[in-house]
């Protein structure tokens, strides 16, 4: 057995290493055989020539015999592939221009797909890095029209006790932590969680322990002063000292005991609605108070064994009904609707549609490049029709020819694919750079085995798509090609096929073009959206304050005033005030408030709300339509006042809002506020949302950490250290952070649209360029093949202008048909974009017209050169050539 294997192996090797020698020996052997046969016939009385003819006729040619004999060699299939590859490489080297264009377009197409696949897989499909992560769910509610209102501790507590579908229900909320170690204060993202959360995510402490009943303030022996650190914080600030467990550290102005450190590989992926960030470094314990009705808590749980998401949804509906009947005073008017989603889906909910659109766009680009290469190959291989016909005549089978042509296109695709991996890598870096906001789970985006498999898959697919049409078209191996000394005008079937491909290319490239056009319009509309403030020339900075240290509102007002006074005196500062939260900040969603006319009993509408210090409107340039701004007097006397924007004024008091009374926030029982000012419409939550109105309340009505707004010529970086020093000297004992231009917040709010627009435009431009190359290539080829026909026409009296019109007309007709088909497709596709657009309809006539015009111009440009050279054909030359 072993010997047999060894022999096979050695003959396998011989096939490759000594292939030429084997071929020569086979030649000799066959010649000897034929000589022998001929000699036999001559001996029987035939003439030598006659005998030779007879033998050859009888045996059916020498090449097929050789082909069949070679085929029995071990490993011959592989040897053939190698031979085809060598041949393919040679034919590529003969037309390096074509090879370069083909490989480049394929590399771009494949690279774009690899990059998008990598992102989509990491963000949308890859399982969470938690044990049994597919069973993790998040609960949320919509409360009186407010999305992502979260759950109340009472609801969570009821569900924990009675749910049969969910276990490990835990509370999680993103917060901030001012960590003071050795006198140095640092602000880091933090989360406040109930004891079940970390174990439910599969976390195990690297040092110390996780939270348990001892950390629960509601437990008889519980105390809330424990804290857990991330590995990074423990390393950076505590020198990775295992002895730090048990140490008391001041966090948020309270001494807390460090009880545990999480492992370095523990990653935090929670939906934005919980406001927990990926880089969470401090964990606080929290308890679930069954008597508390405040909403806004993120709730994470696990599906019990054998339970589906649908089971959980049905059970939640039952609970909703029970809540409503138990506590009708809270849940009247169907105030709350609950939902439960798989954690993995919830993480990507905001970005899902955009990623799918980009994924579709890159697929289009690759398709266009494949069709393009098929077309160029077709054009080129018709020049090779003769070569292929000769090979057929010499005994190559049809399968053999198809195989060879496919090998050539696969070779192209493989080179393109290798380039594609490189471009995909670069593309990922480009994505990183283009996006100022983070994708969910962006840290998990990366190339790996699965991505490589995907790349190989699409490379093969691309190779086959590029090669299959030309291969079958030419395997037919027209013997006519041999008979006619030179191909005349190409066969009608061939021309039809090539024209069809050009039409397909143009149609395919129009779909991403329309999508890109719509995104560009949306972006332009966004940049021109009236914000209600002038962001340029303003630097913002968070100035947190310890509310324990400054427990009294007046003290807080005083410290702010002191800081503002110092800043006002700085050189280069024109004006300064403060408000919070800053426009387009992430937690703006949480700041929606109900409002209504004092005395009205309806549920009211909702508006975004900012807390402002006197002078804020002046600093950011918000125009007052009527009334006045807040004054120091308002703050000193804690006047119950409010400033609303025009939209609220028009809604509630069309005949004049100044002096009217309204309620904001905590229900109708709250004391009414007097309207003292009306501003232009202000947009702070979502730059694409012009329907949510805005109102300002004075600082004493809503005391939160303030953001300084400084009108200045000094850049933010230069201002940062000064601001930090001033705050420290004023004794805020918290670090000033996020010293940014106000423009950055605005830009960030447009980042997604900008990102989508840039990427789509790049892809659309690429596919349009490819389509133009295809049109140009096809027309040039068809024209050069028809030069004899044109020569005849010219000789018979056609003017060169007529020829010009003939060729250019063909290009225009092809473009028109392709554009019509493409527009029909684009109209269908544009509807899917609706959610991503701003200020433009999916069927925007201007965009459709612009795209059509761009394609038309490109088509004319692409047809011009071939048409011109056709009209320049010299009849004598064209007719004399063979």
């Amino acid at each position, binding site marked *: 057995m072993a010997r*047999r294997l060894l*022999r*096979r192996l050695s*003959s396998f090797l011989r096939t490759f290493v000594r292939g030429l020698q084997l071929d020569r*020996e*086979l030649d*000799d*052997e*066959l010649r*000897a*055989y*034929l*000589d*022998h*046969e001929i*000699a*036999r016939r001559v001996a029987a009385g035939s003439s030598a020539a006659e005998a030779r003819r007879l033998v050859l006729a*009888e*045996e*059916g040619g020498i090449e*097929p*015999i050789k082909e*069949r*004999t070679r*085929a*029995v*060699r*071990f490993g011959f299939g592989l040897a053939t592939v190698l031979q085809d590859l060598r041949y393919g490489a040679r034919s590529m080297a003969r037309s390096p221009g074509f090879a370069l264009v083909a490989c480049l377009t394929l590399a771009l197409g494949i690279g774009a797909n690899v990059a998008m696949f990598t992102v989509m897989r990491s963000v949308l499909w890859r399982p969470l890095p938690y044990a049994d992560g597919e069973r993790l769910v998040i609960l949320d509610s919509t409360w009186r029209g407010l999305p992502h209102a979260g759950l109340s501790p009472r609801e969570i507590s009821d569900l924990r006790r009675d749910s049969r579908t969910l276990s490990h229900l835990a509370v999680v909320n993103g917060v901030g932590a001012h960590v003071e170690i050795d006198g140095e204060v640092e602000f880091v993202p933090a989360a406040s969680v109930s004891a079940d959360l970390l174990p439910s995510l599969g976390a195990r402490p690297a040092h110390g322990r996780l939270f348990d009943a001892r950390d629960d303030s509601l437990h008889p022996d519980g105390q809330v002063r424990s804290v857990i650190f991330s590995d990074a914080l423990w390393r950076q600030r505590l020198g990775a000292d295992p002895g730090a467990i048990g140490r008391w550290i001041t966090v948020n102005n309270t001494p807390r005991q460090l009880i545990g450190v999480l492992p370095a590989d523990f990653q935090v992926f929670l939906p934005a609605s919980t406001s927990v960030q990926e880089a969470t470094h401090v964990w606080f314990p929290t308890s679930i108070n069954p008597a508390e009705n405040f909403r806004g808590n993120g709730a994470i749980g696990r599906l019990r064994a054998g339970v589906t998401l649908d089971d959980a949804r049905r059970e939640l509906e039952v609970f909703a009904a029970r809540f409503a009947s138990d506590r009708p005073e809270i849940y009247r008017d169907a105030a709350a609707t609950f939902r439960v989603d798989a954690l993995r889906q919830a993480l990507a909910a905001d970005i899902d549609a955009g990623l799918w659109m980009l994924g579709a766009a890159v697929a289009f680009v690759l398709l266009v490049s494949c069709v393009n290469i098929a077309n160029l190959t077709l054009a080129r291989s018709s020049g090779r029709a003769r070569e292929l016909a000769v090979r057929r005549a010499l005994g190559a089978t049809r399968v053999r020819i198809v195989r060879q042509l496919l090998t050539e296109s696969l070779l192209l695709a493989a080179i393109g694919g290798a380039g594609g991996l490189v471009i995909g890598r670069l593309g990922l870096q480009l994505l990183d750079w283009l996006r100022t906001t983070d994708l969910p789970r962006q840290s998990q985006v990366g190339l790996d085995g699965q991505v490589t498999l995907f790349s190989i898959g699409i490379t093969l697919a691309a190779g086959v798509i590029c090669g299959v049409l030309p291969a079958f078209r030419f395997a037919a191996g027209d013997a006519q090609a041999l008979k006619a000394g030179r191909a005349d005008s190409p066969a009608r079937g061939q021309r039809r096929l090539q024209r069809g491909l050009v039409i397909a290319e143009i149609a395919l490239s129009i779909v991403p073009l329309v999508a890109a056009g719509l995104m560009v319009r949306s972006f332009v509309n966004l940049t021109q959206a009236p914000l209600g403030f002038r962001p340029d020339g303003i630097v913002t900075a968070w100035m947190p304050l310890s509310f324990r240290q400054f427990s009294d509102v007046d003290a807080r007002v005083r410290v702010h005033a002191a800081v503002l006074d110092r800043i006002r005196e700085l050189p280069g500062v024109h004006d300064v005030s403060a408000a919070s939260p800053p426009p387009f900040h992430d937690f703006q969603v949480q700041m929606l408030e109900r409002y209504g006319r004092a005395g009205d009993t309806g549920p009211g509408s909702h508006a975004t709300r900012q807390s402002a210090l006197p002078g804020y409107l002046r600093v950011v340039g918000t125009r007052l339509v009527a009334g006045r701004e807040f004054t120091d007097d308002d703050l000193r006397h804690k006047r119950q006042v409010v400033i609303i924007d025009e939209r609220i004024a028009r809604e509630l008091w069309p005949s004049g809002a100044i002096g009217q009374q309204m309620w904001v926030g905590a229900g109708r029982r709250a004391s009414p506020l007097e309207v003292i000012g009306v501003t232009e419409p202000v947009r702070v939550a979502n730059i694409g949302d012009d329907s949510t109105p805005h109102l300002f309340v004075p600082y004493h009505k809503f005391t939160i950490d303030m953001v300084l707004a400084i009108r200045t010529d000094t850049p933010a970086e230069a201002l940062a250290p000064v601001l930090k020093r001033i705050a420290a000297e004023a004794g805020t004992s918290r670090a000033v952070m996020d010293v940014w231009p106000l423009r950055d917040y605005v830009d960030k709010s447009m980042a997604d649209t900008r990102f989508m627009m840039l990427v789509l435009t790049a892809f659309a431009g690429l596919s349009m360029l490819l389509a133009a190359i295809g049109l140009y290539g096809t027309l040039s080829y068809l024209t050069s093949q028809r030069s004899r026909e044109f020569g005849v026409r010219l000789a018979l009296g056609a003017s060169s202008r007529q020829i010009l019109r003939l060729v250019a007309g063909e290009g225009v007709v092809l473009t028109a048909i392709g554009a019509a088909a493409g527009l029909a497709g684009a109209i269908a596709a544009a509807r899917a974009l609706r959610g991503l657009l701003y200020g433009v309809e999916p069927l925007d006539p201007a965009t459709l017209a612009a795209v059509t015009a761009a394609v038309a111009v490109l088509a004319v440009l692409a047809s011009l050169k071939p048409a011109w050279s056709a009209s320049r054909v010299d009849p004598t030359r064209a007719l004399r050539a063979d």
Partner: protein
Amino acid sequence: MPERSTELLKGTLDLLILRTLELAPRHGAAIAERIAQTTRGTFQIKAGSLFPALHRLEQEGWIEGAWEVSADGRRVKSYTLTRSGRKQLQAEKATWGRIAAAMAQVLES
């Protein structure tokens, strides 16, 4: 030259070649000639079948080719039966015998 020839059963060609070489080493044309003679022209082996078969048998190690000079002074590749080829021949002969006997029984019953 009798034109009537019979389609070879699959695998029969190997047996014919091995058997022909059992008696003496021969080159390609001689093998075809010998088979035609002994079967009185029933089997006319064409080069298109003969050479692939020879090369396959050589790869299996049942026959061995060597270049030598023929009686009429031409350089030819002559094939010899190897030890394992002899074993293979016995095995195929036995198989063929069983098939022939079985066929005969079916046809005569």
